[in-house]
């Protein structure tokens, strides 16, 4: 519903939908202060009875040439900061999505490989779920980043280290014989 008036004091008077019981933050290229206001109002009205859920925490979505656009994680952080509470994040590295896949397709983690380009989402989820993890270097991660985690004293960083890596997933082709 359209918000009355041009200012936050007006927006705070717009009627709230009594049926709303969750605020879901996803990628929103039309994110605005007005929407952030409404999210905050629902969360304050509902307290713990109103869920705050984020689809993922990605900071940036890379574009060609090194540029990037802000990721969903930025919008989640804005809502979390205003509401002073933490969102439940559905996406990687949280295992929720793996559980969805595993229940639908009867996967055996010991015989499943997770392939991804991001250490703190793809590889971390794979490692947490007991999968074999394979890093491909065609995306955001460079190999020296992995070495850094490997050499670190911090055990949490070791969870970001993949079992294997390839320069590109095309490198897997020779292993799949005719």
């Amino acid at each position: 519903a359209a918000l009355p008036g041009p200012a936050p004091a007006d927006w705070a008077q717009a009627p709230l939908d009594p049926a709303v019981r969750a605020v879901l933050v996803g990628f929103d290229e039309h994110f605005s202060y007005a929407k952030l206001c409404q999210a905050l109002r629902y969360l304050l009205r509902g307290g713990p009875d109103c869920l705050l859920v984020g689809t993922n925490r990605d900071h940036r979505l890379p574009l060609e040439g090194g540029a990037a656009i802000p990721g969903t994680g930025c919008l989640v952080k804005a809502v979390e900061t205003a509401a002073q509470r933490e969102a439940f994040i559905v996406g990687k590295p949280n295992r929720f999505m793996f559980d969805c896949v595993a229940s639908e397709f009867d996967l055996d983690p010991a015989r499943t490989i997770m392939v991804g380009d991001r250490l703190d989402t793809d590889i971390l989820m794979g490692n947490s779920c007991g999968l074999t993890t394979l890093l491909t270097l065609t995306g955001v991660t460079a190999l020296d980043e992995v070495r850094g985690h490997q050499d670190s004293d911090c055990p949490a960083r070791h969870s970001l280290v993949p079992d294997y890596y390839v320069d590109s997933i095309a490198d897997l082709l020779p292993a799949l014989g005719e």
Partner: protein
Amino acid sequence: CGGGGMASCRRLSGAGLREVLGPAQGLLFDCDGVLWAGERAVPGAPELLERLRRSGKAALFVSNNSRRSVAELERRFSRLGFRGVRAEHVFSSALCSALFLRQRLLGGGGNGSGAGRVFVLGGEGLRGEVRDAGLRLAGEDEPAPGEPVRAVLVGYDDQFTFAKLAQACGYLRDPQCLLVATDPDPWHPLSDGQRTPGTGSLTAAVETASGRKALVVGKPNTYMFDCIVERFGVDPSRTLMVGDRLETDILFGKNCGLATILTLTGVSRLEEAQAYMASDSPAAKDLVPNYYVDSIADLIPGLDE
């Protein structure tokens, strides 16, 4: 006034009032929730300022609100019944952010050319303060060669959009481009008890997207006190900080070496101060005020007739 040891959140009244206010040369006041709430002055607040003036004590104002220029704030004081408050007494995060950027981009006060531009996420009040400091804003006029965007300033921006967030991130790819925030406040109260998101929530979005940490001008950081000292030369040991928000005003007072008075007409509740006092966390004790009052009108009996 001032000084070490843990604060004990004592109610100020009677003889205690005179003991604390007597030696003070001046008071720093936060504005929202202390002097006024929305369009209503806190009852007795204008009289308190008048009595301070008659007692020869200074009253200065330090606000994290980055919406208004100090000229607008001067008019607001007058409209709400406060006499004799001039723009030069008012230190808003908008003004101090502009002063900070002027220092960093123009050095000691050089001319504007080659200094670069500032991309401002905020309203006209904030933009005006940045212009008044001699800086040029991104998106206004044709940029001359050699005028890259040298700073992104995040303030209270009720017209914030994803597009502006993306634009800010583009500028911040240059590591020479500063990221500055007017204040860290996560939300502000509205007069009906609801809340509106604050600069802190927008800054969190920009920090996450850019991978950078913002330099935060406002309370509890001490830059605004540096601006006050530069202009008026106050002695922290003879100055009291009066505010309504423990995490900004009281911590600011502590960080600047000021004794602090919490007033209960705004954001923080007495129970929160008491909880910080009872907490084992070392950081929590810095959020405990030395004193509290129900309203700043309660300070009046501590001043000479």
